[in-house]
């Protein structure tokens, strides 16, 4: 009986791992196939061809799209962390009237359906002459990365020991000194976690990238992949799409696996503790 239970448990685990990993595995396999082999649903590639990767990287602006995504996500993370860390210090460490209302407002913005701001954002983007530029994306992505960053960093700052801060205040240190000299060095792990999560959400964003850019060279990778098409309307270049998908996903999966623990703690700080 015990044996049976154990076997059933391992079968369940095997099923979980299989379902989680198989689609990505199959995308990799497909990306390595070429020609007619693509249309035979085999579980492993008979031949090993990098032609799809060559196509994606040399024909069309995919490399440019990758750079765009990196620039946008990097800038979004930098700005969010910069604005987020001062806000988080104020929210976590200073008592003032309206603090809990503010926290609630920040949480609701992060849960806000982005479509509800789309029309107004479009107006702002056009008024600032940012349409079809990466700056439009950097600006609009703040709507989801900023509240998220503030929220998660606040939970991290709250956990820092009070004694250090009190000692610094007695020594005559102002809030800016406390934040930059004392808290910031302690906050590096939290900043890395939050930054990574913000980077991932900016890297994956689709709605604003689709709406605020119009030419192939200004697109980010999710939009580029979604709009990747073949020579004719009926010929979908699955090999190229899968190669592009693998290129975009491998760095993310690597980052996530390396920083597994950090990411889990960041996600739960954003979710459970709130």
């Amino acid at each position: 009986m015990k044996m049976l239970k154990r076997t059933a448990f391992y079968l369940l685990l095997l099923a979980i791992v299989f379902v989680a990993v198989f689609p990505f595995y199959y995308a990799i396999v497909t990306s390595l196939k070429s020609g007619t082999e693509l249309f035979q649903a085999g579980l492993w590639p008979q031949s090993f061809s990098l032609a799809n990767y060559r196509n994606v990287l040399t024909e069309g602006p995919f490399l440019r799209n990758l750079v765009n995504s990196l620039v946008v996500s990097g800038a979004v993370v930098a700005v969010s962390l910069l604005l987020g860390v001062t806000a988080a210090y104020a929210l976590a460490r200073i008592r003032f009237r309206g603090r809990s209302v503010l926290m609630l407002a920040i949480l609701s913005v992060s849960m806000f359906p982005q479509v509800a701001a789309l029309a107004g954002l479009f107006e702002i983007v056009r008024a600032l002459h940012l349409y079809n530029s990466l700056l439009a994306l950097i600006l609009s992505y703040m709507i989801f990365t900023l509240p998220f960053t503030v929220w998660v960093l606040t939970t991290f700052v709250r956990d820092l020991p009070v004694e250090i801060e009190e000692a610094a205040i007695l020594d005559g240190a102002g809030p800016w000194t406390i934040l930059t000299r004392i808290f910031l060095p302690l906050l590096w792990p939290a900043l890395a976690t939050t930054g990574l999560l913000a980077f991932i959400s900016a890297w994956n964003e689709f709605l604003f990238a689709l709406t605020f850019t119009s030419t192939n060279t200004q697109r980010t990778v999710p939009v580029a992949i979604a709009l990747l098409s073949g020579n004719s309307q009926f010929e979908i270049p699955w090999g190229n799409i899968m190669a592009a998908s693998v290129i975009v996903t491998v760095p993310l999966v690597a980052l996530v696996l390396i920083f597994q623990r950090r990411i889990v703690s960041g996600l739960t700080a954003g979710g459970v503790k709130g």
Partner: protein
Amino acid sequence: MSAASVRPSPLARRRVRTAWLFLAPMLFVLGVVAGWPFLRTVYYSFTDASLADLDARQWVGFDNYFSVLTLPSGRLLYDGLLVDPVWWRAVWNTVRFAVISVACETVLGMIVALSLNADFPGRGIVRAAILIPWAIPTIVSAKMWQWMLNDQFGIINVVLLNLGLIDSKIAWTASADTAMVAVLIVDIWKTTPFMALLILAALQMLPREILEVAKLDGANPWQIFWRVTLPLIRPAVMVAVIFRALDALRIFDLIYVLTPNNVQTKSMSIFARENLFEFDKFAYGSAASTLLFLIIGLLTIAYIRLGRLSFEGGR
């Protein structure tokens, strides 16, 4: 907060000033990218603005939501979002999608979390594996699954045919009967890990002693789960559910890529964006965005109210 009745010290007052100074840049940016745009969206929903010329707009009151036209023949014609069957179809699609997907994700996430909470060799590998769907961009997972679900060459049809489970190949993402199923499969696959991780975190915060005591009292695992574990992690699960539900209610990218132009899966967000930027009905799209916000807001308030009521009643 005992200091509230006492006059605040100069230091405390200075710190409050600092707090607002530290918050100001963040609040300004959020105002520019969230607050103001949302107010403008609401404003546009009361105008007749078109994408080509946003400035040439006129106030039309509630016409985008509801209006009555009298035809020369004397017949009344109702118009506007509130009587638009396409819109209500989108609302129904979205709500149905959110309820089914979040329910499945909660159950599956619970199963995964309970498995990961047990001690077994190779636990780290399993946890790493379930993080993969979460790490894959939504667009990429939509494309991956679109390929696997392809009617002609997709591996899922091939496997099902070989197993004899289906007689002919199914056009999963294109056919009216299965398009929503396809969207649900991909969404559940992609977001169950998030649910599992949040539930797992709650499980790991449970005091071991309680479970030990229950075991000593002769409770079987099934009873322990329903009587001890579930009530204790319930608040965390409720929070995870609302996070996921709010995410599901605004679904856009997965449906846009996986089942484009499909009436069966068109969500509220797709409907709004389509009108804003593709049909040249900017004002109508703004009205849809506003209504979408109201519907999600009301559902959230209802969920929080109902959740808290039964939560307190259960204690």
